[in-house]
C-alpha cells in the first residue's frame, strides 16, 4: 500500500465517528464518482442525485467497511455501480427520451463544418459506449476519464491486470461493432 492509501485507511477508520474525516474522504472522491455516474447516465441532474445517494449510503455504512487491501474508492465505485444499475432498471420501466447530448470539448474547433462533424462523432461514440455492458462502460470511464492504469482498474473492478487487458481488447472490438450498427442505422 502507498502512504496515501495508508492515510486513507486511517481516514476511513475515523470516518465512522469523525465527520471531518468523512468530509476529507468526500473531497477526495466526489469528482471521480460524479464523473463515473455522469458518463453512465448522461445527465447532469441524475449524476448529482446519484452522487449524493452514493455518499449518503457510504456515510451510513462506512462503519462496516473492512480493509481487505482494496482501496476505499473501489468500495465507492461499487456503491455507484449498484445505484446506476437500479437507475437504469427504473428508467427502463418508464418510457423516457434517451439523452445523448453530451458534447466534448470542441471549443478549439472553429470551422462550422468541422465542429458539426466533431459533435456528431462524439454523439455516436457516446451512444455506442452506453450500449456496452456495464462492466465495459466502467472500464472505459476508468481508463479514459480517470486515467487509471490497468492495475488500478483491476483493483477497483476486482479482476487481475491481465483480465483487464483482455476485457479492454474485447471492449474496443464491441465498440467498433456498435459504432457500425449506429452508423448503418442512421
Amino acid at each position, binding site marked *: 500500500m502507498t502512504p496515501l492509501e495508508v492515510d486513507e485507511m486511517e481516514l476511513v477508520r475515523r470516518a465512522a465517528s469523525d465527520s471531518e474525516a468523512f468530509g476529507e474522504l468526500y473531497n477526495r472522491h466526489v469528482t471521480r464518482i460524479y464523473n463515473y455516474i455522469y458518463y453512465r447516465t448522461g445527465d447532469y441532474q441524475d449524476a448529482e442525485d446519484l452522487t*449524493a445517494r452514493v*455518499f449518503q449510503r457510504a456515510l451510513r455504512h462506512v462503519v462496516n467497511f473492512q480493509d481487505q487491501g482494496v482501496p476505499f474508492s473501489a468500495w465507492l465505485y461499487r456503491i455507484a455501480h449498484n445505484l446506476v444499475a437500479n437507475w437504469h432498471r427504473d428508467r427502463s420501466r418508464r418510457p423516457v427520451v434517451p439523452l445523448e447530448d453530451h458534447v466534448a470539448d470542441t471549443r478549439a474547433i472553429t470551422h462550422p463544418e468541422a465542429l458539426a462533424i466533431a459533435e456528431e*462523432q462524439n454523439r455516436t*461514440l457516446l451512444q455506442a459506449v452506453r450500449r456496452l455492458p456495464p462492466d465495459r462502460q466502467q472500464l472505459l470511464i476508468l481508463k479514459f476519464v480517470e486515467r487509471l492504469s490497468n492495475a488500478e482498474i483491476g483493483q477497483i473492478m476486482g479482476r487481475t491486470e491481465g483480465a483487464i487487458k483482455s476485457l479492454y481488447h474485447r471492449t474496443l472490438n464491441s465498440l467498433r461493432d456498435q459504432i457500425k450498427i449506429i452508423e448503418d442505422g442512421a
Partner: protein
Amino acid sequence: MRASANRQRLNRKRIEQLLEESLIPVEPSQSFVSDLRARLVTVKGDQLLSPWMIVLILASIVIFIASALGIALRVLLALLGLVGIMERQRRGSKALSA
C-alpha cells in the same frame, strides 16, 4: 464513422483517439459539491457537541446566573433601604405628635 470525411477505417488507434477526445473529465458544480458536503458533514457533524461548544454554553449559563443574582441583590437592597426610610419617617412623626 460516417461523419469522418476521409472515411478512414476505424482501427484500434482511431477508436482510442476518439475515446480520448470524447471521454473528458467533467466538473460537478461548486454549489452542488459544497451543499452536499454541508448536508453530509456540517449539519450532521458532531462539532455541535465539541468540548469548546460545551465550555461556551456552560460559561454563558454561569454569566447569566451571576448577572441575574446581582440584579436580584440590588433590588433586595433597594427595597430594604426603602423600608428603612419609611420606618424612620414613621418614628419621626410619632415623636413629634408625642
